[in-house]
Every structure is written in C-alpha cells, then in structure tokens.
C-alpha cells in the first residue's frame, strides 16, 4: 500500500522490505558517485588485507537504501532524519535485507517514526536506527 497521507499510517505497520543490490559493480558505481571510491569499498582483496571481511558497503549507501525504502512506501514523505547505529559491517556481494516498521505517529505534527534494520541471512542485525519523516495530512 502506498502512503499518501498521515491518516493512512498505522502503528506497527511494516514498510515493504527489500533486498538491496550490494553487488560490487553497484557499490563501485555508488562509491565513485559519492566520492568514496577507496579500495576498502571496491576491492575485496585489498579490504581483506586490511583485516576486513571483504569490501564494505559504505555506511551512506546503507542509509540510502533505508531512505529509498521509505520513499517506495510513502513517495511524498519528507525524510527529516535517518539516525543509524552500525553494529557490524555489511560486506559487498552478500545478501542483506532492509526492513522498516512504524513505531510512533504524531498526527498533529505529521511526524512518523520508523524503526530501521539491515539484517543478514542469519537474521543478525548489522545496522539499526530510526527515521523521522513528515507525511502530508
């Protein structure tokens, strides 16, 4: 269901989840565009030599995935903040799942708070946080 007004939003509502494209070509494209094209994001071998589990999905790319999920759900939403805590790295070429759920609604101000998580195949939380979005009345 696409959300166009805050009156459509329900507490506990789950946003449509999706599996982001964390393939190396996609991450490379993003990293170059964002000016973050260092080898730790674009080169598995280099990243492993640095002691990392592989090339990393940049944190701002994860935030972009979370923001994209919100706009797929509510195209007219204004994202005021996305506040993320990075608990464990997201590695390029591995599957992750982006989820969101509504945890607070203030109809007077039009503000909705959304819990955000990035989990892996083992259902371990790699990134979590909250978003504050304004949805028109």
């Amino acid at each position, binding site marked *: 269901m696409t959300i166009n007004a805050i009156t459509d939003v329900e507490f*506990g509502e789950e946003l449509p989840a999706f599996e982001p494209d964390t393939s190396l070509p996609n991450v490379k494209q993003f990293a170059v565009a964002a000016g973050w094209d260092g080898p730790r994001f674009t080169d598995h071998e280099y990243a492993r030599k640095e002691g990392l589990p592989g090339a990393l999905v940049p944190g701002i790319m994860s935030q972009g995935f979370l923001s994209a999920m919100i706009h797929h759900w509510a195209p007219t939403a204004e994202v005021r903040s996305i506040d993320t*805590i990075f608990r464990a790295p997201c590695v390029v070429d591995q599957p992750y799942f982006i989820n969101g759920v509504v*945890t607070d609604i203030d109809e007077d101000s039009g503000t909705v708070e959304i*819990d955000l*998580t990035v989990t892996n195949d083992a259902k371990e*939380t790699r990134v979590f946080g909250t978003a504050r979005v304004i949805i028109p009345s």
Partner: protein
Amino acid sequence: MILDLHAHSIKSDDGRAKVQNYCQWIKAREIAIDGFVLTEHRQFDDESDYKELGQKHGITILKGAEVETEYGHVLIFGVTKALQESFDFTNIHLSLAQVIESCDAHGAVAVPCHPGRKRVGMAAHLAEFGIPAGVRTVEVYNGGSRGVEDQIAQQMADEQSYLGVGGSDAHIVSHIGRCATEFAAAINSELELVEALKGSDFKALKISQEDA
C-alpha cells in the same frame, strides 16, 4: 512472570526508543512479556517515573543500569542512591570486583551481559584476567547477539555453573522482548526483582517473532 531484563531508551546515548512506544509495541504485537527493565548505559535514570505509564498499559517497567568493567558490560539491578555513591557509573574502566562488592554491600545484583561478545563480553577477558570471584548469574540470551555469541555465553555459564538470564538489549522499539527471563515469582518492583535474582527460580528465554 516474564521480564525483558535488558532494554535501553532514548536516555542511553545509542538508544532510540521512547518508553511509551515500547509499551505500545508490546501490546500491539502481543509480545509475550509482562514487563521490562530499563538498563541505561553508564547511568541510572533517577528522574523518570514510569509507574503511571506501566499501569496504563498493564506492563511492569523497572529500572537498572549497564556499566562497563574490565570484563565487559555488566547489568545492575536494585540500584539505590547509596550504590550510586559507591562508584562512578560513568567510568568505563570500572573494576568488576568493585562493582560486585558494592552491589553486595547495597543489596543489588550484578549480572555480566552479552558475555559472548568480543571486547565487551566477559568470556573474551577470562584468559587475561582469570575467573572473577562473585559472579553468580550471567546473561546467556541477548537479543543483539550475532553468530555464536550466545553459545559462548551458555558454554561459559555451564562451565562455571552460572545461572542464566535473558534480555533483548533493545535500542529500538521493535526489538523489545526478543529475549527475556521467566520468573516463578511475581515481580512488581526493583526490590522484588533483586530478591528473585538472588534465588534460582528463573530461566532465560528466547522469544521469536512467531511466538510473540
């Protein structure tokens, strides 16, 4: 009675959940817990009173703390003014022995949490510092555990004959109640929680979304 013994609110630096939203979530999703304990990082929340909120939702809301020692993080239940004056909760280099000694002296209980976690868990420090004296109970189920962290915690508990509790370690609303502790006794206050933890009639639980 089932309590989630480990949760953080916006009072913690990395907590993003408002307490009223935890209550709403538990009721809306029918999470199988009767209450939770707010264990804010490096502090005890003296100023908040959640009695009315708890009564409104029929949920027991208690308060504790999570402090940091050379053995990793430790939950404290039964925090009093006197306990707070006995050591600095904000110190990230506390001595576990001192924390346990102070808790014993002031009627509180110290429980090392997520002991299977690297750096901030007790198991990772046993080789360096040895088996600490005075630990009786550890958190064997933590809702934020990854990989084999809970297995490491349980194995350590088995080897040392520790009792086990569970807590979600929730920092966002939707993570409350992922793990919890079932008590035989009814618990409606921090004092009753301490009494129950000084006994042995409790067990750690994992609560899946499907069970909730």
